[in-house]
């Protein structure tokens, strides 16, 4: 069953359900009853980064009977974008362009998690004819369309004309057009067949006037019909406008009021009742629809439902909706409009039209909703497309360290029973020892570095070498199509099945960070950090997601997809990218039906929990990234065995996991305390407590610091110092530390060479806070020949 998420934030806020909100209501009410879909309805929360779930019964009750609230009365259930599972569909049927949770932020998150993004496109008029809209609407719509074009997996259009307009737009923008499906809307709105009709307003005679119904706004082109009042009056036909005055129509309103035939041949009924509207429809010669552009043209169908002939603009969408029953005219020509009226008046044309219209049956909302449900189910199945019979039995490791591999092998042997073979890619000289010392269940086979390289020089840099070798491996080594790639020190902690890697037809990629947030070892970047920065730049430059998948645990690889990626980007094998992040981000963007993005599950990553601020919490703890150092005296695993011991392994691993969880919990507490401080500071000073080093008006460096900072006692805290690019000069040094009231450094002074930092990152002040309470001062120095100082109160508690 396909899980569909629908954000109905606008619908829930709209008092009068018309236009798009009416469509959303009609479709969603029916989708809730569709057994092929599991539907989760969402509405924005005040943070605009998460939703509350709308209970189905409350929603249905509110929108069918008008009682209660669509939000329900029970406990609020929260959903965050990153929690929507891979394979689900996010269906945007409401007017999402004016939602605070804007799609240029939301859609990339959904996409990088393998969620199928399906926006409903009603029209592109704010792009093609922006002059007809409020400026804010145009701006929001342009942003929304860009997000749609970049991230939509499929688009549902309401008309062929809309699809054609989209294709034209993509051509003009030189971008790919996402796959589109046309599903016309329903139109069987209740018309209150026997409902009361008011008497025809004074001055009007049946069949002696043409009617235009709807809000008076520039796009609807009332001006054309107003210009036609005189020639029509010469034919004994009057003109009637019924509706409200919309935006930007002050001048037109004056023109109507001043019209010489106002009250004789021209009438404007502002805000008429439903009964008056019914009378006007029933007695009109025709409904005129001179609009410049439309998304769908529901008013044409409404006119048919009243049995009234229609004269409409000759534009593709109205031709599509109005069909043969309507007559068409050039919406820039009064003569063309008058000619259409003449045709209707000639002979028995009108009678024949009315007869044909009487037989008209609009498309039903039931049919439209069923078509949409079927389309959504087809776009993404809950089960992915990796064949169910896929069996994983091969593991592959690149290593030059026999000791590490021999210590890891017993863990693989014991806890990964589905792995039968391990392909070891290593120098020729390592093979004999491995053959001699390993006698376990898993069968070893070998592929030498020499075979792999075939004479090509081996890059010196660690990460460049790794990526280069893995790319060669995919091309040359005897690999299964689907296998598990690992390193020689990734140890499973508990028995796992292949479901851990391949579940519900999707290969699970375990991510640990967002590459765009990766800080690394500040100012002294490792080969690994530099590889992350290069990978970030490559992925974002290609418009691909940029999660960090080097989670330091084994991961599933489909060799065919890896090769496909290398064929698409042949230059990258020498670029020293991160092999995991490049592959999984490519895979999830190009084959979302075959991948699922899942938070990582390893302990020992980071080596020490204070090495960096965690970006996400692990979804379970199933692997250990083995660091000898963590087993040394005073470290977290000091009292545990470093080797596999069948007798004690289960209890030891359980305890290790528990300890790691405690460490993770401490970091969560620190993050919560800092968030609380920021929130309290914001409520008091109305701005966030930011630290910055910037150029003042005179060009000199100046520290801008909050009134105070407050950090939890005993916590390991990182604070970012926003730094102007111009101040990152060669030789410029930043020093910082925390002094007590006697001027002694209680958090020792440290130094950052600003020119050494990645240009996209600001320096981080790393502050290991003392355990006790402290009233002190954070002291900063910027030294670039001249020294600039700044300080602020620093409370540790």
């Amino acid at each position: 069953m396909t899980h569909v998420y629908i954000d109905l934030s606008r619908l829930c806020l709209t008092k009068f359900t018309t236009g798009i909100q009416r469509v959303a209501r009609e479709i969603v009410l029916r989708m809730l009853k569709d057994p092929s879909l599991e539907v989760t309805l969402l509405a924005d929360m005040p943070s605009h980064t998460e939703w509350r779930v709308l209970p189905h019964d409350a929603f249905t009750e509110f929108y069918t009977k008008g009682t209660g609230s669509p939000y329900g009365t029970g406990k609020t259930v929260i959903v965050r974008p990153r929690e929507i599972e891979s394979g689900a569909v996010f269906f945007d049927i409401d007017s999402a362009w004016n939602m605070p949770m804007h799609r240029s932020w939301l859609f990339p998150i959904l996409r990088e998690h393998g969620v199928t993004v399906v926006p409903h496109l009603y029209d592109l008029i704010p792009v093609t004819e922006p002059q007809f809209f409020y400026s804010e609407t145009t701006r929001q719509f342009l942003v929304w369309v860009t997000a749609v074009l970049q991230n939509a997996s499929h688009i549902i259009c309401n008309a062929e004309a809309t699809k054609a307009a989209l294709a034209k737009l993509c051509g003009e923008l030189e971008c790919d057009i996402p796959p589109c499906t046309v599903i016309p809307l329903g139109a069987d709105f209740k018309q209150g067949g026997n409902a009361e009709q008011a008497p025809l307003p004074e001055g009007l005679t049946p069949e002696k006037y043409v009617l235009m119904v709807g809000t008076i706004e520039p796009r609807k082109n009332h001006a054309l019909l107003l210009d036609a009042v005189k020639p029509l009056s010469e034919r004994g036909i009057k003109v009637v406008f019924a509706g409200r005055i919309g935006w930007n129509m002050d001048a037109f309103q004056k023109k109507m009021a001043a019209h010489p035939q106002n009250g004789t041949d021209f009438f404007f009924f502002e805000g008429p009742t439903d009964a008056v509207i019914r009378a006007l429809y029933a007695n009109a010669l025709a409904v005129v629809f001179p609009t410049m552009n439309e998304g769908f043209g529901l008013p044409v169908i409404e006119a048919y439902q009243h049995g009234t002939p229609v004269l409409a603009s000759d534009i593709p969408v109205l031709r599509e909706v109005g069909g043969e029953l309507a007559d068409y005219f050039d919406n820039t020509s009064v003569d063309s409009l008058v000619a259409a009226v003449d045709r209707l008046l000639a002979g028995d044309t009108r009678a024949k039209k009315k007869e044909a219209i009487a037989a008209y049956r609009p498309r039903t909302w039931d049919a439209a909703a069923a078509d949409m449900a079927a389309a959504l189910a087809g776009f993404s199945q809950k089960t992915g497309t990796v064949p169910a019979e896929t069996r994983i039995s091969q593991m592959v490791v690149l290593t030059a360290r026999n000791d590490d591999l021999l210590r890891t092998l017993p863990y693989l042997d014991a806890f990964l029973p589905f792995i039968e073979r391990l392909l070891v890619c290593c120098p020729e000289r390592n093979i004999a020892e491995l053959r001699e010392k390993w006698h376990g269940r898993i069968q070893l086979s070998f592929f030498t570095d020499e075979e792999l390289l075939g004479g090509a020089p081996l890059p010196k840099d660690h990460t460049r070498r790794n990526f280069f070798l893995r790319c060669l491996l995919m091309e040359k080594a005897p690999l299964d199509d689907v296998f598990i790639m690992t390193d020689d020190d990734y140890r499973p902690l508990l028995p796992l099945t292949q479901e851990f890697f391949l579940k519900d037809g999707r290969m699970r990629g375990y991510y640990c960070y967002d590459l765009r947030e990766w800080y690394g070892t500040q100012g002294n970047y490792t080969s690994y950090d530099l590889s992350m920065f290069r990978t970030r730049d490559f992925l974002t430059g290609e418009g691909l997601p940029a999660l960090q998948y080097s989670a330091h645990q084994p991961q599933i690889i489909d060799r065919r997809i890896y090769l496909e990626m290398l064929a698409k980007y042949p230059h990258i094998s020498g670029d020293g990218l991160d092999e995991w992040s490049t592959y999984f981000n490519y895979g999830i963007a190009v084959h979302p039906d075959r991948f699922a993005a899942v938070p990582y599950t390893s302990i020992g990553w980071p080596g020490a929990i204070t090495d960096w601020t965690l970006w996400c919490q692990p979804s379970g703890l199933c692997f250990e990234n083995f660091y000898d150092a963590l087993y040394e005296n005073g470290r977290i695993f000091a009292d545990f065995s470093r080797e596999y011991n069948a007798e004690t392994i289960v209890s030891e691993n359980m305890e290790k996991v528990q300890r790691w969880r405690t460490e993770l919990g401490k970091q969560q507490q620190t993050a919560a305390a800092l968030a609380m401080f920021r929130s309290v500071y914001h409520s008091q000073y109305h701005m966030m407590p930011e630290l910055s080093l910037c150029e003042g008006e005179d060009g000199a460096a100046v520290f801008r610091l909050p009134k105070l900072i407050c950090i939890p006692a005993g916590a390991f805290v990182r604070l970012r110092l926003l730094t102007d690019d111009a101040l990152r000069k060669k030789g410029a040094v930043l020093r910082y530390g925390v002094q007590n009231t006697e001027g002694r450094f209680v958090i020792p002074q440290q130094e950052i060479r600003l020119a050494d930092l990645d240009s996209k990152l600001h320096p981080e002040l790393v502050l290991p806070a003392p355990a006790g309470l402290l009233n002190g001062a954070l002291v900063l120095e910027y030294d670039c020949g001249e020294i600039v100082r700044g300080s602020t109160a620093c409370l540790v508690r």
Partner: protein
Amino acid sequence: MKQTPEALRSRIYKLAESRIEAARAKMPCSAALFEALAAQRPDSVDYTLLKDLDNRDFIEAVFSLLLGRPLDDATRAAWQDRTDSMPQEQFRTAVLRSVLRSAEYQRRMTPLCRCPLPVAEESGQINVQVAPQQMPDRLMRVYRKLPAPMKKLAKKLAGKEDA
């Protein structure tokens, strides 16, 4: 053709601009303002994305992001002189101070982040020496258990009514 979000937004802006100019109308905002607004997160306002805007666009952006509405004509006129004449940093600081202290903002409280301007400052830093003293832990535990009226009395006796 693959394009970054910024590049595609820039293209679509230019396309809409050409259409709107052909209709003898004006784009609702400059290209720079359009991009600065589009790149924001939904839950906060990142000042660094507004850094390169000129004063006119800056005040439009501040109203749109912090107050959730377009800049009204009366406010635009009230700031007109300063928009053209004040040094950029002073102008921005003044605009932000005025907006952040408004009752309208205090109903929304959208956080302004990564802003290096001295918006919250008027009288310098808090003096470390006069930072509020902490009650000893033991007394604090007793205090927390007091009913509300007793807490109020305790605060009064300690001379910390405003604490």
